[in-house]
């Protein structure tokens, strides 16, 4: 066997591919499912926290800042292990899927809150003054005037952060979630061949490259017309 043949045999083995394709596909859909749930819940919670913070209630804001700083500082894996292996001792057993979803959602929410908040602050004060001067209430001004501008400003960092955190679905393998990487490593050890890992790599690209382009598209689509 030439070196090239050995390379193909190790990483792109057709019979291994065939055998483990169903597992990889299953993992792909589980990863997709968690990713979608994390993105929806994480961004929604992040936005809600940023909106809450804009009311500038001292105690509430302290709590938000503590929550955000903690979740941004801790490695998600630590939180996953604590919740998955620690909580059952308190009589609360969450499935690996729920733990993974919860932790990634909270981490994404923390980062998203900071990004949304920075966006809200960077909208010109004159926009508040104009909106309030016409009799719009605080929440109305926020919802109709400030947030649409703030969110446009935050699309790029938000997309980056969302992708970075959603990729952490791979951490599910340490707590037995049947997501993509878990399926791939299991298949790899059964087959004694790295091909399933390459399949997972391709599957990750199929999942995330469109998200990158989606982010770029949203950015251009929502940039309001400039002269």
């Amino acid at each position, binding site marked *: 066997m030439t070196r090239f043949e050995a390379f193909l045999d190790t990483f792109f083995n057709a019979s291994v591919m065939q055998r483990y394709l169903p597992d990889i596909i299953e993992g792909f859909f589980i990863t997709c499912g968690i990713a979608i749930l994390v993105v929806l819940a994480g961004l929604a919670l992040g936005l809600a926290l940023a909106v809450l913070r804009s009311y500038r209630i001292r105690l509430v804001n302290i709590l938000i800042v503590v929550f955000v700083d903690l979740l941004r500082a801790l490695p998600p894996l630590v939180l996953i292990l604590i919740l998955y292996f620690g909580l059952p001792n308190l009589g609360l057993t969450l499935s690996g899927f729920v733990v993974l979803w919860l932790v990634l959602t909270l981490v994404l929410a923390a980062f998203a809150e900071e990004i949304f908040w920075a966006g809200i602050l960077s909208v010109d004060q*004159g926009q508040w*003054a104009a909106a*309030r*001067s*016409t*009799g719009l209430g605080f929440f*109305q001004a926020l919802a109709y*005037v400030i947030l649409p501008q703030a969110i446009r400003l935050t699309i790029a960092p938000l997309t980056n952060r969302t992708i970075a955190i959603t990729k952490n679905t791979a951490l599910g393998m340490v707590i037995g979630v049947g997501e993509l990487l878990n399926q791939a490593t299991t298949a790899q050890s059964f087959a004694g061949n790295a091909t399933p890992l390459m399949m997972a790599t391709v599957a990750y690209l199929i999942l995330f490259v469109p998200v990158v382009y989606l982010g770029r598209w949203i950015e251009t689509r929502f940039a309001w*017309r400039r*002269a």
Partner: protein
Amino acid sequence: MAPVMSISGLRLSYGATEVLSGIDLDVAEGEATFVIGPSGSGKSSLLRCCNRLEEPGAGHIQFEGQDILASGIDLNQIRRRIGMVFQSFNLYPHMTALGNVRLALRHVLKLPRDKADALAKTQLDRVGLSEHMSQYPAQLSGGQQQRVAIARALALEPRIMLFDEPTSALDPELVGEVLGVLSELKRDGMTMIVVSHEMRFAQNAADKVVFMSDGQIVEEGPPAQIFDAPQAQRTRDFVAQAAL
């Protein structure tokens, strides 16, 4: 006739700095009151107290039978009766001209969409911009933007209009179109307070000119008095300098 707005004993501080040191001013129905004075004299702060964009530390502002500085009043209800136009236009950049005018009609007056649209178009027509209603602020000139901003304020049919240096951010060749709208408003009998550096316009359009310095009203009177025969030394100095 009772004044539309009556300000008394108005004080405003930013921390230890007193910006307004006891302002008393009556604004009569249908009159254009121009506030002039050096920068930092408190003109804009005074205007922003009139709809409580700034919170004064003390004083009263009587408007439509209530003190708008009192606690527990419905501020949004009052603000929709007081139109404001800003130096930097402050149009909503993500909305068309029509969208800018329509927003408060929809969400403050709670008009149905077709009514709000019709009313917004009428107002844009009034400032000569009906052809530009589907354009975004960035596609409009400064003068057009400011006229949209005026239409946005007028749409709520305010009892009084506050103009905060409405032409200061404009290129000189665009000042005229905005002043033209102000003249028309005045002719229509709109009550207004105008903070402006346009001395010649003030001279022609004002019913009353208020000269402010260091957070106080130094002198007020008809334009003929303030510009041609000022009583106070500080007014004389300012008017002489502004004429240069």
